[in-house]
């Protein structure tokens, strides 16, 4: 009996011993780059990229490592954005507490929707999550506190811990940097924990994971809730950056965008979602004047990505370097 336990537990422990050197170097370079970035790039744009990078990384936890395609992640992103905006504007909470409120609300919503959605698999799972996200959209459209078509506007940026004013873009930038970078490191830790190893086992072969004694549904629900919470953290932070939370954040096209970012960057990779998010946000920024062409281009990237480029950018790089990225 003791022998059996050992063999089951041994594998994850070996793989989780510390961060590979390559990953340490990449994270350090990334952090160094992000620290100097606001002095070269418009900080609000950089903050938007970081929020979406966290959103895509949270989504990737579910799809890339859990093997669950949620087509309704806008519900948690946008739902948290509304709650955080409401907390900051109406309750007058400080930014860090507002963001936490938003993330917590997204977590509760994820737990509720996730507990229903995990009753179905595969494409049904995708349809169920999409349908519930649409329900959240209708609630946001009709509820009092969300402001309907107007959304919640001119959300105050407030003082961090009640002390440091975030009205200045650079100050806010470093707050967003800490939140999103911390969130991404946390996701990295989850993926490389024993819990993350079990997730991969479930993704690869669910019946086998069940036969090994894992309560698969509990793992799925936990990863769904974690992913929703982190997506909420991203959405809540975004509402502080733009001082706005609107129907765009809960719309189904937002759910599609995060799928696209992850697909383009490479699902199941660590850095793929970050690359994908940066590329899509940059593209939207430059093509904003072309209106619906942005939608068409995103559709084309989707089609090409699915047909010939399923590994994504970082996936291909990782194969060339023969190292997981």
């Amino acid at each position, binding site marked *: 009996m003791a022998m059996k336990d050992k063999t089951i537990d041994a594998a994850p422990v070996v793989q989780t011993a510390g961060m590979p050197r390559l990953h340490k170097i990449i994270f350090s370079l990334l952090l160094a780059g992000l620290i100097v970035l606001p002095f070269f790039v418009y900080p609000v744009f950089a903050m938007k990229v970081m929020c979406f990078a966290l959103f895509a990384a949270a989504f990737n936890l579910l799809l890339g490592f859990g093997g669950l*395609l949620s*087509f309704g992640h806008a519900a948690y992103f946008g739902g948290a954005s509304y709650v955080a905006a409401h907390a900051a504007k109406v309750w007058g909470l400080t930014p860090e507490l507002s963001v936490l409120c938003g993330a917590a609300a997204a977590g509760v919503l994820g737990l509720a929707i996730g507990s*229903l*959605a995990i*009753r*179905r*698999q*595969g*494409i*049904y799972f*995708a*349809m*169920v999550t*999409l*349908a*519930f996200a*649409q*329900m959240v959209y*209708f*609630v946001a*459209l*009709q509820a009092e506190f969300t402001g309907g078509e107007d959304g919640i506007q001119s959300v105050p940026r407030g003082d961090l811990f009640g002390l440091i004013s975030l009205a200045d873009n650079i100050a806010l930038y470093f707050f967003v940097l800490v939140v999103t970078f911390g969130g991404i490191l946390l996701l990295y830790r989850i993926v490389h924990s024993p819990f993350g190893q079990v997730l991969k086992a479930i993704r690869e072969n669910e019946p086998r994971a069940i036969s090994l004694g894992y309560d698969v549904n509990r793992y799925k629900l936990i990863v769904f809730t974690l992913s929703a919470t982190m997506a909420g953290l991203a959405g809540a932070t975004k509402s502080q950056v733009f001082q706005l939370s609107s129907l765009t954040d809960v719309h*189904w096209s937002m759910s*599609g965008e995060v*799928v696209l970012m992850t*697909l383009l960057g490479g699902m199941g990779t660590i850095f793929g979602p970050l690359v994908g998010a940066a590329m899509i946000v940059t593209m939207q920024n430059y093509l904003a004047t072309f*209106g*619906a*062409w*942005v*939608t*068409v281009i*995103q*559709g*084309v*990237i*989707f*089609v090409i*990505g*699915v*047909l010939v480029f*399923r590994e994504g950018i970082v996936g291909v790089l990782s194969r060339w370097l023969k190292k997981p990225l």
Partner: protein
Amino acid sequence: MFELLGVPPQVLLGQLLLGLINGSFYAVLSLGLAVIFGLLNIINFAHGALYMAGAFAAWMLLHYLGIGYWPALILAPLIVGAFGIVLERTMLSRLYHLDHLYGLLLTFGLALIIQGLFRNYYGISGLPYQIPDLLSGGHNLGFMFLPNYRAWVVAASVLVCFGTWFMIEKTRLGAYLRAATENPILVGAFGVNVPLMIMLTYGFGVALAGFAGVLAAPIYSVNPTMGEQLIIVVFAVVVIGGMGSIMGAIVTGYMLGLIEGLTRVFYPEGSAVVIFVIMAIVLMIKPEGLFGRPA
């Protein structure tokens, strides 16, 4: 004047009719999804976009070629079906050996492209499409006013649904189709051209969407966004019904349309979400769907 729970019968029946109309579209669209899913094992996310394309095809036939409603009712589904066949041959057929989720992602991308293109050329304000002369006006039934065109929509959708059900469940061709759904390799070994069947099935499924689009054109204005909200509701309908049975998809479609209509009478604020709430309840009680087979 009798009243039911404080609601005048005209209002109640009017909303029920509206519900039945919506239910007609749910039924035809979820039927198409079920037919495609049965054989291809993919969920066609582009279904809403192709429904919209059907409405636009009817509008274009009228405005550029002067072809009216009745020929369009045949031609537009054929155009949409042919377009679907091209999509199946050039793209979808490359994904059959992969996880079914890729089919969903591909068709989602296609939906974005189709909707984006129509939005670029026609804007989002919507284009009017006249009710055909034969069906304009309506009848006073004494207890309510029944517009002819709406009665026709319900009748036409029932007819198409029944025809599809009959073809799949009662004919020799349908028997091949059901056999290929169960085991495509074995059916292929018996000498049936399965890839051809898959191609035609996809074409037929999206032609149903195109047909629904033509039916919808005179009721709702022809608009590039008309399919995107609808398809998500239809997904919920499909989850509620389960895609195991053709009849299940049809019955669930009409039933949910009626329930939505009733909700609009008694609790208007809930009408947009009632179908999603029913989906949640069904997932709790019978996760495989009302007509679905346990996985």
